């Protein structure tokens, strides 16, 4: 994988995050993404499979066929996908740490409450 860090699109990141726990099929991914984003990201089948296609092309996820459920295709993280997710999480972690250090979160919250 290219060692240079590249930001993942938000939906792609959410899908990788959803697949970090276990393999999932399309609807399971949609539900997990919805849950992880507190209902803010609500994917339809079109957007979901566009992202899945892009992630597969980048080698970040793999397609899996389950013998007991041949109608649905399942997807799982590849090694590169797990690494990309980790890099992205580290980046966010760093951003959050920075925000906490600068007391941005408290400031923003306080500002929001005051308003």
């Amino acid at each position, binding site marked *: 994988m290219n060692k240079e860090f590249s930001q993942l699109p938000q939906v792609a990141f959410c899908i990788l995050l959803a697949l970090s726990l276990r393999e999932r*099929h*399309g*609807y399971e991914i*949609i539900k997990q993404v919805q849950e992880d984003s507190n209902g803010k990201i*609500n994917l*339809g*089948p*079109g*957007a*979901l*499979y*566009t992202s*899945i*296609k892009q992630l597969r092309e980048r080698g970040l996820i793999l397609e899996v066929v389950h013998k007991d459920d041949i*109608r*649905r*295709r399942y997807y799982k993280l590849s090694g590169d996908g797990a690494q990309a997710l980790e890099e992205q999480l580290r980046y966010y972690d760093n951003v959050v740490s920075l925000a906490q250090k600068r007391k941005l979160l408290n400031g923003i919250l306080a500002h929001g409450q005051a308003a």
Partner: protein
Amino acid sequence: MAKQHEPYRIYKALLHLYPKSHRKAYGQQMVQTLDDILSDQHSRYGRFGVWLRVAYELPINIIEENFNSIGEISVNKLTKISNRQLLFGVLAVLIIGSYVAMAVIWRHQRTQIMELNSTMDTVSQNIFATNGGDYNAVTIIPSEGAVYLPLAKLKLPATPLNEGLVYSYKTGLSAPGGKKLPPVLDIGVHDLAVNNFSTTKQFDCSQVVYASFTTPSYPINPMWESDGSVKLTDGRTMNVYYAPRISGCEGAWQANNIDTKAIADSLKQAVSY
């Protein structure tokens, strides 16, 4: 996949608008996922909401996928152009194309029509043709407040009767066998002395061409009204003369079934530069 209601069939049909590769790889899974989503909805409103979201998402997604497909298959693999560069190229082509189209329309408008400030309700033509020879024709339609340049190059015989020329444009003509014929333009001579019209020359309108404008000056004739020299919007100068306000003239137009508006409309359609 339990249900095969009408929306499903429409959804499946719409999947054909995706690029073939995408449809082949993911079409069935998209339908399956939609089926899973709908099966999980326990109310009619919930299912309606899902369809609403699909209706919103699908067209955008189809366009996006087709665009990606063009970028990847047709261009990227041949020229290594990125999608962003392709998008930029398409936008540039669209912008340039719009400018060209606007320029063509503007030029067409500019050369074809000149505004007049007349309320006279007649049609006339301003070539003084008594000497015969080659003339550039102009149709003046004061009822529309415009001068049309129908752009016919006329070769006219010398005749003392050429006080005015009349256009009669005929469309929908057909030969005896039923074969359609092109529109024709009858050029008639208006004999002021007897208020009569006679057809002297018929043009195949596919041969009507644009001619540069060199209107000869018209001698002073008290029976005609003139607004003198007029500057055309493209910079050329022409002398405009209107059909005379002679008693009986309008009746003569009507008697000869000359519909000035129809002539103008037909000429506009017929003439291409």
